[in-house]
């Protein structure tokens, strides 16, 4: 779509040369995020370099009622940064400076385009680190992390992004700049900081983030445990958590994921195991030694077939390498894979595993399972080939069935990847119309005209009404005589 000439010329004035992308070939580079099955060419891409420019851009978009989609690194897996054909894609890539490291107050203030891992690297000389560590941490940005409330392997013990962010500077759609949270541990009035985390770019543009830092634990060791039955692995997870130990990370992979990872990075995983657990324990030497003993006993109790313990940092990193590269590794098994992100109450894990397996067989598509088992967050990876028949369609249907299953057992359709454009229909399963209406009212309080990332995260009610009618009748459409649009 072409932009209104007046809008375009004002935008050029704000940005100057080189910071506005208008050419088709260059726009294509931004057509999708990590959910590459959904692509749209944006009308324009802006790459502002300072806060004033972002303010001016938003003011201009507000005046001209042009929708705005923010983008960090574009690693999101739910289409949150998928552009709009009639919209401006606002890249925060140039906001890549670390503004302040305050070791005394254990925090760092950074621009939103700073990569997650870059924060921990920068504060390492102070003996500190930033705890939430998405597997994409070498690439994803802190702005994207806040917008998605991202998690990672270490979130079981140290919390999600929302637990590790102290203050934000946010620009509203009318260009107003707000400080949300504070340099202290709380702020007066409503907790807008909680609301901004996970708001997927629908409430405001984050232009500065102050994160909490933690002291690096003196010791961290990871234990790998193999099982010849995935259900036993699931039970061992509950066993560990209920024993009073909170591991720094507790991850699970099934056989297909193990084999893929092993072939890809040679982490030393047992390829014949039905499932493995990776359990990291951190703290002082004494603590870790004590916890390891306890964990080992629990694992034995649940019939683990073998264990291996890292004895130095290199081995620890190697054991994690397989898990951290599980997505790309599985990506080598089939031309395409579709990553799901449901969460379930931990004790339902064995049952859910069994039912995912049944669904996989029914839909004739293989699934590799990778879990943040400690907090019940599942990542079934559905393997398919978009070039063969209806496989993409089947993969999406299977994915949706898995998410329905998660809701049915008391969980949620997304643990950390967000709703974006991907899970918009499943939101109708998770929430009742009145709840969705409340979400729309929250949105309107921030963005009356619905210009920030419209169409994402929260579905319109009529969309759910139509879908709901379809769900209830189990494929048999009600009122087949009526026209549908």
């Amino acid at each position, binding site marked *: 779509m072409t932009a209104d000439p007046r809008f375009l010329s004002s935008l050029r004035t704000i940005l100057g040369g080189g910071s506005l992308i208008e050419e088709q070939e260059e726009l294509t580079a931004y057509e999708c995020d990590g959910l590459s099955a959904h692509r749209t060419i944006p009308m324009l891409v802006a790459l502002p370099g300072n806060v004033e420019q972002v303010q001016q851009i938003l003011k201009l978009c507000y005046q001209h009622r042009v929708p705005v989609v923010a983008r960090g690194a574009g690693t999101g897996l739910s289409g949150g940064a998928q552009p709009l054909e009639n919209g401006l894609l606002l890249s925060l890539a140039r906001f890549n400076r670390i503004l302040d490291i305050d070791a005394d107050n254990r925090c760092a203030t950074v621009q939103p385009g700073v990569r997650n891992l870059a924060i921990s690297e920068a504060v390492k000389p102070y003996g500190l680190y930033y705890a939430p560590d998405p597997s994409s941490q070498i690439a994803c940005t802190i702005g994207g992390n806040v917008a998605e409330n991202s998690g990672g392997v270490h979130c079981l013990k140290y919390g999600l992004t929302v637990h590790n962010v102290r203050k934000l500077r946010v620009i509203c759609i009318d260009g107003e700049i707000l400080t949300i949270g504070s340099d*202290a541990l709380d702020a007066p009035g409503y907790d807008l900081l909680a609301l901004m985390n996970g708001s997927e770019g629908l409430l405001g543009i984050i232009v500065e983030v102050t994160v909490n830092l933690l002291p690096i634990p003196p010791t961290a060791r990871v234990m790998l445990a193999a099982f010849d039955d995935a259900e036993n692995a699931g039970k061992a997870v509950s066993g560990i958590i209920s024993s009073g130990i909170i591991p720094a990370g507790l991850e699970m992979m099934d056989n297909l994921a193990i084999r893929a990872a092993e072939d890809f990075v040679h982490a030393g995983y047992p390829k014949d195991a039905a499932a493995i657990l990776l359990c990291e324990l951190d703290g002082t030497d004494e603590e870790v030694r004590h916890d390891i003993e306890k964990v080992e006993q629990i694992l034995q109790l649940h019939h683990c077939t073998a264990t291996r313990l890292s004895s130095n940092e290199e081995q620890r990193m190697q054991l994690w390498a397989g898990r951290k590269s599980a997505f790309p590794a599985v990506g080598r098994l089939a031309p395409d894979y579709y990553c799901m992100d449901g969460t379930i*109450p931990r004790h339902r894990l064995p049952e859910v595993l069994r039912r995912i397996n049944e669904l996989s067989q029914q839909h004739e598509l293989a699934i590799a399972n990778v879990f943040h088992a400690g907090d019940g967050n599942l990542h079934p990876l559905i393997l398919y080939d978009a070039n063969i028949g209806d496989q993409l369609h089947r993969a999406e249907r299977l994915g949706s069935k898995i998410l329905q299953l998660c809701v049915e057992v008391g*969980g*949620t359709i997304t*643990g950390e990847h967000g709703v974006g454009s991907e899970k918009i229909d499943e939101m109708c399963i998770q*929430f009742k119309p009145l709840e969705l209406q409340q979400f729309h009212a929250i949105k*309107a309080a921030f963005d009356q005209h619905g210009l920030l990332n419209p169409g994402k995260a929260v579905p319109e009610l009529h969309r759910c009404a139509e879908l709901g009618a379809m769900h209830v009748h189990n494929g048999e459409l009600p009122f087949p005589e009526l026209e549908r649009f």
Partner: protein
Amino acid sequence: MALQQQIAEAFANSTPLSICGGASKQFLGNQVAGEPLSTAEHRGVINYQPDELVMTVRSGTPLQEIKEILQAQHQRLAFEPPSFGDAATIGGTFACGLSGPSRPWTGSARDSLLGCTIINGRGEQLHFGGEVIKNVAGYDASRLMVGAFGTLGLIMDVSFRVLPVPATEITLSFSMDAAQAVASVVSWSQKPLPITAAAWLDGELLIRLSGAQAAIRSAQLQLGGDISKQTEFWLQLREQQLGFFQTGKPLWRLSLPMAAAPLDTPGEQLIEWGGAQRWLLSGEKPQTIRQTALAAGGHATCFRNAQGGDIFTPLSKPMLALQQRLKKAFDPKGILNPGRIYTDL
């Protein structure tokens, strides 16, 4: 009459409501003129699975009862909420959003919250969040309820995370002045030590260590100090039962960056949360105290014995406008605890 129906009727008649759990924290915030609405009858545990580390309860359940149920399973609330009286309910605990001595290390009330069912100002029952730790479906409307003092919705039931009780806990005592205390805690907090509380009062710094025995022993060797015999100190601090609090003077709560220098405002000080929460007994002008807090990078609340004026630090104009719109989004007629936080919210 059912709570939902009561709110629906109040909505229809535009009647303001004054929500009350156990009335233990009525002293905090402005008085609300409204028809009383009590959650006291709405009680009971809905779900508690110790091995999931999650509990769901009705909002009128007494906090004390919950603590006892958890204790029996060697678990506890991570944020150590103050009760301020036996009548405190869990709903009020989250609505007020107060956290105890462990706050900087094990998180706040809102950090523990996983989900809730609320009734908004239209009388609609809504459920946000859930019983799982990771959940990013929709806006995080449940954590928004924490510290909203019931002005956005009546909390009907809450789900929250619980933690195992640490194997061992000891308190170390150091005699030092306020500046030394702040500096010491700041430097220790950058090290991986099992600190879970730190407070300074009257020339004594108290540090609580929690965790596995071995870890505590090595931390103790590192830190030095004497083992304190004041076993009830943290409880009395949390519940404001220490002698310090027994006064009619205005009690200010200053929420500051933890490394902020000791205040030079006249009045007695108790430093908590390793420096991030400071209690000040002072008859100084609110304006002066607020300015001091602001200059140090924080904000000030007149917690008890206010002598008129705002209780909480006033918001900037655009921030207030946004929060007013948000209030309207939940409570279009402004019937839920109107004015409890700010007179114009």
